[in-house]
Every structure is written in structure tokens, then in C-alpha cells.
């Protein structure tokens, strides 16, 4: 579980790492810790999955990926984990989830976001997913976003008091 020092480190790095030669030392200086302690804790959070990865996140559109589709599929429940794992491994899929159906209007339970530079790219990607799913694809749709109505970062204000974490 996270303790108060972890949460301070999360808070200090949520907006990003300082772009200076010794970024972990810079964070440590701000928090009154040693660089070793910051690095040890970041590595531990990476190992436990609290940090998905450390690295760069590009803006899809600025890299020329203007075609972003949410593909949705109706997959038999007893096959979805096996097939979901395979779809997630395709190199153009950025998110892949099993989500609940809402019958009758929403029969889809597998969601995969795909990204291409042209409509033809995305069409090819969708066909590749359909081929992989084969007979287990009982229906599908693609929802393209037409407008971003709101986009803010996830401001996951981490609770700083250690008592909060032990109480949950």
C-alpha cells in the first residue's frame, strides 16, 4: 500500500518529471528526501503496477493520427478473456477492455481503441481484429469521435494523510 511519502512523490511527479540532468535528485530536493529513496520508491511503484510506465505520451493528432475509432464487439463471455488478450496485443490498439453489455440496445462487451493516419488504415485495422475474432464476432460497430466536448487530466489528488489509506 502507498504511504505518505509515496503520495508526496506521486503528487510531485503527476504533472511530469523535471527536464533537468538529474530529475530524481530534483524531486528529492523538493521533498526533503534522498535521490536513492525517490528512485527506490518509483521502482517499487512500477513493479506493483501503480506506475504503468515512465515515459513520453505523444498527442495522437500532432503525430498525424487523425482517425481514432472506438471499436466494439459482441463476444461470447466464455471466450472474451482469451480473445481480449489477443486483440490488446495488436500493435495499433491503445486500450482494450471487457465492459458490461446493456441489452437490448448495447450488445457489445469488448472495446478496443484503434488509431490510424487515414480512414483506410483504420479500416484495415478493424478487418484485422474481425479476422482474429472469426466466428466469435457476433456483431460489431465503430464509434468515431466527432468532437472533444471536454478533456482534462486525471487530477487524482492523492490523499496525503497515511490514516486515509489504512482506513480504506
Amino acid at each position, binding site marked *: 500500500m502507498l504511504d505518505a511519502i509515496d503520495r508526496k512523490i506521486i503528487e510531485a511527479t503527476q504533472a511530469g518529471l523535471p527536464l533537468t540532468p538529474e530529475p530524481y535528485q530534483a524531486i528529492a530536493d523538493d521533498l526533503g528526501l534522498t535521490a536513492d529513496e525517490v528512485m527506490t520508491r518509483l521502482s517499487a511503484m512500477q513493479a506493483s503496477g501503480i506506475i504503468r510506465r515512465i515515459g513520453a505520451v505523444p498527442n495522437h493528432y500532432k503525430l498525424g493520427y487523425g482517425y481514432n475509432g472506438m471499436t466494439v464487439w459482441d463476444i461470447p463471455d466464455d471466450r472474451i478473456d482469451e480473445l481480449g488478450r489477443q486483440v490488446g496485443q495488436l500493435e495499433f490498439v491503445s486500450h482494450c477492455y471487457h465492459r*458490461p453489455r446493456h441489452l437490448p440496445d448495447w450488445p457489445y462487451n469488448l472495446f478496443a481503441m484503434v488509431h490510424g493516419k487515414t480512414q483506410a488504415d483504420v479500416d484495415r485495422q478493424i478487418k484485422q481484429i474481425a479476422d482474429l475474432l472469426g466466428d466469435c464476432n457476433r456483431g460489431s460497430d465503430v464509434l468515431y469521435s466527432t468532437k472533444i466536448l471536454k478533456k482534462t487530466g486525471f487530477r487524482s489528488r492523492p490523499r496525503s494523510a497515511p490514516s486515509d489509506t489504512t482506513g480504506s
Partner: protein
Amino acid sequence: MDNLDKRIINALQGGFPVCDAPFRQVSLTLNITEAELLIRLRNLRANGILTRFGPLYNAEQMGGALTLAAVKAPEDRFDEIADIINAFPEVAHNYARQHTLNMWFVIATETPGQVRQTIEAIEEQTGLTVYNMPKIKEYFVNLKLEA
């Protein structure tokens, strides 16, 4: 954006070392100087080609809660519904999509109970049914968008 920018973006999507001088380590693999790498990264951040550079945290692992939800907003009330939904600070993203379920948004809160409360408040204020689609399972992805 030139070829070096692209090499930097491609190299840094895969991960970043945790060590005393991580930029120096990365710069060696790219055959450039540490100073050049830092200048390039500052520019890529400043002009928005990189939206973030650093640790990507998993909100749910930190005790937070997330869900994806959708509504069928009638065309003549679309803007009004968007305004109501966007006014919730718990709504992190909201996208218009081509479907009868035409408005899709992500709710991010500190506890699962707050997700339920937000959905109930949106249903009450809009008069619409919110289709709640929390993830049952997340499948590992390995995406790198080639720059």
C-alpha cells in the same frame, strides 16, 4: 518535427530509466548529447507534441475509481446536455460520437461511491439514462504510435 524528434519520441514511449542521470543514459543510445536531448524534450513538451513526460499512474491502483459512461442526448438538447455533464469536475473527458449513444464520458473519482453519486446526479439533472460501462477487465496493450 524532424527525424531526431521522431527518434526521441519513439525511444521514450517504451520507457525511461530510473538512475542518477537518466537523460544521459538515453542520449547515449540516441548518439546525441544529454543537453541536446533535454532541449528537444523541452520543445516537444512546449509545443504540445508530447502531452506528458514522466510516470503514468494507474488511478485505480491508487484507490481511485473510473468508469466509462454514455447517454443518448436528443439532438435538440445536445449542447445543454454537454454543458450539464461537463460541469461535473468528476467528468474528466467527454466525447461526441456517431451513434444513438452519442455522448461518451469518463468519470474519475477518489472512491467508487462517488462514481455512483455522480451518475445519479447526471441522471437527475439531464433526465436521461446513463449507461454505465465500468471495466470488467483490462487487457494489456503495448501501443507505440510511430512518430
